[in-house]
């Protein structure tokens, strides 16, 4: 639990935050400079620290047996087990291994598919409502048989569902309501303010001919509000604009708050960050405003591949090809072509957003970043040495590396290609639904690929080397800049933006190789560009005049024994970096990427434990990483 890290403060702080928070709301005059500056120097350095000092790690995207595909893949663990495991208790996984997290998580969103929620139990039990069709009877039989038959049934269900050919209506309120109320009750039961946050949520499983537009929907609210409506389903609509309308209706009706997080653009075949709306309309100011309003975050990394950058889009970025899944869409019914990539990756989405903003003044793709698991095993277990897989068909076993994880007409993804990734890191004032949700809304978040490093990132106009040597970098960061997810405007004449960035390694993972800042901007031709800068590197390596360090950190991984040593890399890195190529007339974004030294990938642990050979193609070492939410610079009009 890193929640206590970097926090030298106590409950008194939470009180301070509450006070300053409400003070802000009172009057806009409070934003005047002289009012926001501390009037008097206090003695205690902890006074006036109204900023978040805790980073909480969680999973915003966990499926239980209530999800139709999870159940059919063989997941037998329900809500109780999912919450117990997430909180650090031991459970028995569906395939029989006992399972426990190395460290508990601080929060979780159980996000079962809203379509067909609870359908699995009906197939399994042979409910008359589904036994009236040939498919129901066949799947009922396959689930009874278990094993490969059950996995095949799950793949068939996903395919039919992806293609809009699922034989039943999946949004029948009669079926949904009792299941939804169970979901809410379980979240209420396990939510433990201050210690562990269980959000109410679900996944809206939008697919357009197998192209993934899924969104996880998260409630800031408790059961009384959430119970007033049912989740939105694909059967209602596949168009995100309709989801946003539905979310608005919920908020108007209940006074509650929702946000949605899209994921797996890499399986969307170009339509996640598209150049037009799903219904074929132009992306305009109104669309951009609504997308920003409802979707402050994007899930950049998860088990079904990492979606930060693609090597074809970022040929100068040697770290871009990380856990890449680029064969086709979700059900592999359509192969991927190169022209689709720009609409799929977080970095290219952020760039496209700038281009649109250049045209009509609002950025449709202005999102922060988080990672999550999308695990369908009820177990958010993505530590490399403790990886329980994408679904119960690929839980640990000597054979899973060569089992098909996803597949269809245009290819298949084998077990060894699963990424043991990721978690959502959130800078919040306390571990409650409200505090974490609000941090997500202001994008004060970052994605990690499963490691729990602590990362700070601030942008301002006058950070100096001195701030990097400070014992309280966050003091300077918040006082003279904006945190990750924030905005810089009104460049003072002759000034370039400077960034204060710091990373502390995960105590249980590898040392740090480097911190980079990735900049995207719109050139004078209206086209977005990108560039990677190394800003802090370990082991005394040099950063050259181009802002790069091309010397690799090295590799201490012993694949056979699945070990490594922290004799290379640094336990923490900190730097102040000023953009050397800044043009005040060009809109831009900046985000930090922190990279660890190589450590054994889950495949190496698995080969050692089961004493098996992994296929030649399997990667056996990995460099875990973190991606922060960007800070945007917007020029004066």
């Amino acid at each position, binding site marked *: *639990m*890193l929640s*206590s*890290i*970097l*926090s*030298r403060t*106590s409950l008194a702080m939470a009180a301070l935050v509450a006070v300053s928070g409400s003070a802000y709301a009172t009057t806009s005059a409070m934003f005047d400079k002289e009012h926001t500056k501390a009037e008097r120097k206090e003695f205690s350095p902890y006074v006036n620290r109204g900023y978040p000092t805790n980073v909480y790690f969680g999973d915003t995207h966990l499926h239980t047996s209530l999800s139709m595909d999870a159940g059919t893949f063989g997941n037998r663990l329900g809500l*109780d087990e999912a919450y117990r495991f997430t909180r650090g208790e031991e459970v028995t996984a569906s395939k029989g291994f006992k399972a426990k997290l190395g*460290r508990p998580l601080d929060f979780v969103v159980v996000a079962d598919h809203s379509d067909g929620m609870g359908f699995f*139990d*009906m197939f*399994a*039990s*042979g*409910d*008359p*409502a589904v036994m*009236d*069709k040939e498919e129901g009877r066949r799947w*009922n*039989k396959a689930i*009874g*048989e*278990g094993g490969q038959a059950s996995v095949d049934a799950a793949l068939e269900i996903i395919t039919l569902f992806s293609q809009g050919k699922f034989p039943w209506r999946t949004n*029948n309120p009669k079926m949904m309501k*009792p299941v939804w109320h169970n979901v809410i009750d379980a979240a209420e*039961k*396990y939510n*433990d303010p201050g210690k562990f946050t269980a959000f109410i949520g679900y996944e809206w499983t939008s697919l357009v001919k197998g192209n993934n537009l899924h969104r996880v929907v998260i409630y800031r609210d408790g059961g009384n509000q959430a119970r007033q409506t049912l989740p939105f389903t694909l059967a209602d609509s596949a168009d995100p604009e309709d989801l946003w309308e539905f979310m608005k209706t919920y908020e108007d009706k209940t006074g509650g708050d929702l946000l949605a997080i899209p994921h797996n653009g890499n399986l969307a075949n170009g339509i996640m960050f598209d150049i037009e709306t799903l219904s074929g309309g132009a992306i305009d100011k109104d669309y951009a405003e609504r997308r920003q309003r409802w979707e402050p975050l994007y899930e950049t990394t998860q088990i079904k591949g990492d979606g930060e950058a693609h090597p074809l889009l970022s040929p100068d970025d040697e770290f871009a090809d990380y856990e890449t899944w680029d064969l086709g869409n979700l059900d592999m019914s359509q192969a991927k072509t190169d022209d689709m990539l720009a609409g799929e990756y977080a970095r290219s989405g952020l760039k496209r957003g700038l281009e649109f903003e250049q045209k009509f003044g609002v950025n449709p793709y202005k999102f922060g970043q988080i990672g999550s698991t999308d695990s369908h095993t009820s177990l958010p277990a993505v530590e490399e040495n403790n990886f329980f897989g994408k679904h119960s068909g690929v839980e640990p076993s000597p054979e899973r590396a060569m089992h098909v994880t996803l597949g269809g007409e245009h290819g298949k993804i084998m077990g060894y290609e699963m990424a043991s990734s990721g978690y959502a890191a959130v800078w919040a004032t306390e571990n409650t639904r409200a505090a974490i949700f609000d941090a997500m809304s202001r994008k004060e978040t970052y994605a990690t690929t499963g490691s*729990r490093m*602590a990362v*700070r990132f601030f942008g301002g106009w006058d950070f100096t080397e001195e701030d990097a*040597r*400070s*014992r309280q*970098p966050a003091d300077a960061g918040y006082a003279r800049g904006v945190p990750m997810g924030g905005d810089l405007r009104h460049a003072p004449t002759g000034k370039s933006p400077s960034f204060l960035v*710091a*990373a*502390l*390694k995960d*105590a*249980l993972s590898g040392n740090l190789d480097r911190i980079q800042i990735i900049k995207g901007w719109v050139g004078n031709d209206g086209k977005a560009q990108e560039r990677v800068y190394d800003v802090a590197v*370990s*082991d*005394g390596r040099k950063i050259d005049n181009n802002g790069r360090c091309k010397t690799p950190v090295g590799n201490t991984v012993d694949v056979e024994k699945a070990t490594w040593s*922290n004799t290379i890399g*640094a*336990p*923490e890195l*900190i730097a102040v970096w000023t953009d050397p190529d800044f043009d005040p007339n060009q809109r831009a974004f900046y985000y930090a990427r922190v990279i660890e030294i190589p450590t054994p990938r889950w495949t190496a642990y698995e080969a050692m434990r089961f004493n098996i050979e992994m296929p030649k193609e399997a990667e056996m070492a990995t460099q875990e990483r973190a991606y922060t939410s960007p800070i945007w610079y917007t020029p004066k009009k």
Partner: protein
Amino acid sequence: MGLSAANKFFKWIVREPLLHFLVLGAGLFLLYAHVSDDSPGSTNSIVVDEAEVLRLAEQFQRTWMRPPSRQELAGLAEDFVKEEILYREALALGLDQDDLVIRRRMRQKMEFLNADLAEQQAPSDEQLRAYMNSHADKFRQPARLSFEQIYFAAEQSADSAQRKAVTLLARLEAEPETVWQELGDPTLLPAALTDASDRDIAAAFGGALAEAVGDAPLKRWSGPYESTYGLHLLRVTERAPANLPPLREIRALVGREWSNERRQQANERFYQALRERYSVEIRLPAAGDKLAVRQP
């Protein structure tokens, strides 16, 4: 009857577990008697009554989103009769025996049926206190430590970090009132943890330092100790032993564990009650004997 309806039925019929077992046992007995009845006389009447017709119509409605016509309803009823006859004949012929799929389905249905049996009224404080005391290990809060630390980066030179740490320790021993917060190398690590468990310390500093903190002397500086980050001087300010908190502080947790255990116990009792009615004999090969398992 749908599964959830079946569940409700069971919940409604008995709240008392013992009575429940008796009723369920009787039901099973009747079912068994019914199935094993060789004479067809008692089973050769089939009545499709109003309730059954309504169920058929509702099932049709769910699929077609409209009620069935009279003719369609007659067809549904005929189909139901055909299924019922073939089903009974199949049972009579023993076609359900030795069928792996059917066996698993039946087992699953039984497990689903009794999954919710344990749902009961809220437990009283007395019940929870008794449960908490008899499961003290489960609810005991781990020992809590508060400590301060001064960090020395060992990345550039482990020797010089060691020297700096030893020198500073000597100074702190001589002058314990020294303001220590600005000493050592700057770091993002917390300068102090309060009320931290062993697990919290390991999460923040790694296992080696957690162990060192556990053994370090109280209220004075000691070290240097090595961690995954570098070297540390430590001062433990408080050690609170593991303890069992009063019920009011952890009532929700105890309640959850209590219900969970009740659920598992009810399931197990249910199974054991059934099992007692069988004489079970399992013949495993003697230790050392090899089974002639065929390779696939």
